[in-house]
């Protein structure tokens, strides 16, 4: 049975291009908890899928980690998706190239500091790519991360103020690794 209250919250997030993750981070207690919105969709998936199909959206579950909606019969690749992918690849590369464990990015207690990211991303090899993707040309890296990753539920800021990959962000890398 669909919950009116939860379905409204779900709609608000999905229609704004936000992923609904399996787990949500609670900053106050610094812990991950099961996301009631994800559970709501999971339990009533058929109903929700039908609901969104009627308004021309496909309700997608990726890797059993998160939900998002995409337009049915959508056109070309949208710019926002490429920007998200470019940002994630560059952040992942910075972490790996510096010899850190990838787990730092996925452990909600750890994460990476904005200063570390900003410093690395200011290197020419990265700025060239970012500018080509129309990123960081007029906004700071923090603004870009906030706008493309945090606001969309692909990353979150933990209680230490560090950036951490959410289930959606981690799933992107899992698929990247599995596909190679």
């Amino acid at each position, binding site marked *: 049975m669909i919950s009116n209250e939860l379905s409204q919250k779900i709609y608000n997030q*999905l*229609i*704004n*291009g936000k*992923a609904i993750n399996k787990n949500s981070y609670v900053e106050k207690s610094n812990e991950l908890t099961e996301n009631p919105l994800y559970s709501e969709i999971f339990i009533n998936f058929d109903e929700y899928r039908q609901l969104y199909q009627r308004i021309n*959206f*496909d309700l*997608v579950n*990726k890797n059993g980690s998160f939900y*998002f*909606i*995409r*337009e049915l019969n*959508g056109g*070309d*690749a*949208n*710019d*926002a*998706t*490429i920007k*998200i*992918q*470019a940002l994630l*690849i*560059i952040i*992942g*590369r910075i972490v*790996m190239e*510096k*010899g*850190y*464990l*990838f*787990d*730092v990015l996925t*452990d909600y*207690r*750890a994460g*990476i*500091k904005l200063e*570390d990211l900003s410093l690395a991303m200011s290197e020419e*090899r990265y700025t*060239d*790519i970012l500018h*080509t*993707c129309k990123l960081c040309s007029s906004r700071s890296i923090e603004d870009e991360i906030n*706008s493309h990753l945090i*606001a*969309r539920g*692909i990353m979150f800021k933990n209680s230490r103020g560090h950036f951490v990959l959410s289930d*959606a962000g981690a*799933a*992107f*890398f899992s*698929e*990247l*690794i599995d*596909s*190679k």
Partner: protein
Amino acid sequence: MGGYLSGGWRRYYLILGDLFSDSLENLIKTGIVSEFNKSRGTIAFQPAILEIFRLFDKERTRGLRSAELENIRVQLENAYQQHETLSFSDDNIAFLEQRDHLFDLLRTINSQIQNNTDHLQHEADRLSQRLDQDTAVLSLQASQQHREMLVQVKRIYDREIIPTLEFLNIREYSKTKAPLAIIDDIIRLYDIRGYEDDSYYIGQYKLSILSHYKTVEKVKQALQRYLHQERRHRLTYNAIEQAYLDLQTKAQSTFTESLKDKYIFKLFAQESLYFRGLKNHAAGQEARIEWHERNHLVYFEEYLIQQNAKKRSESSAEIKTFDNRPKNDRHNAIKRRIEKIIKACDIKPPVDDLYLEMHSLLMDELQADYQLQYLLYAVSCFKQQQGSKFKTRVSFSYPQKTIRYQNQVLEYNKREFIS
């Protein structure tokens, strides 16, 4: 050539040198110290002596690597070939020399394998302890150290554990003969030529060397968990590196492509996008708003003024009249009774204190329903009814007159009822 020492070790042995300065000459004479240079402050020991020192310090022992194990294998093979060409006889000096050399070699191999096993066990314990401490890697620095440890595990596994297991594995097929299989061949030679005692002792050496296989296998098992971690890390690194190079190639190609295909966004295949079709923000992804600073204090005060005005207008709209009250209101019922009582009462002037008179009247008539607040209403009603015929005169006194009734007090200025 002797082994030179550096850093802390050199200092340590120079101190030893100072302590035993008288004996240094003896050490040089006996060949333990192969070189001593006072002006450069260096001292060189024979390699065998350094090996002895290493035995006392496990941190400095190094495992046998492929090259060293291959060297042992070659020595065994040479020993076998030498024995094969010799006639086994106690009178044959060459045979006796080869036999002594063989037993020396077996002793050395046994000792080296023992040291190697100890070293591997020590390293496995050290790395396990260190890695298990870092169950939660919460900082970049700790993560870097953790990764370096994993690299060490991988290095030891590849360079020391696997070669040692191959060295000790007699069943392993390879182009070259396994070292323990060569020892088996030597044992057979001694058996055939009637030297059963020697073959027995060589067999004992072989068993002793082989006994390390299980221990090294256990070390290998103990490190398996970390090897999985290391492998996962390596795969992640490779995958991200590949994705990054693809992205970089696409970005670079936009600098040279024709204007039509200039944008990187056209180069991405739909299928390659993980978040393909993710909905744009409803408000528009690229929206930019001029967001000027504002004086919040001014706006807050303005808000308070608005709220006060609103409150005032609302409160005036809520003025309640008698008629607005429901008909069954208890107070209204009592007031209607009071009106009837006043109408029916027979109070004639002069009355010295109208309030007191009215109070007595209402107490009698209303009894339990009477409250002091109704007195004012009764006086007002009385004045309304009798005002056209008679007059009331107010007299002021200090303190004012009071009437107490049921824990209530009414203070009033006396009104005389006169004709």
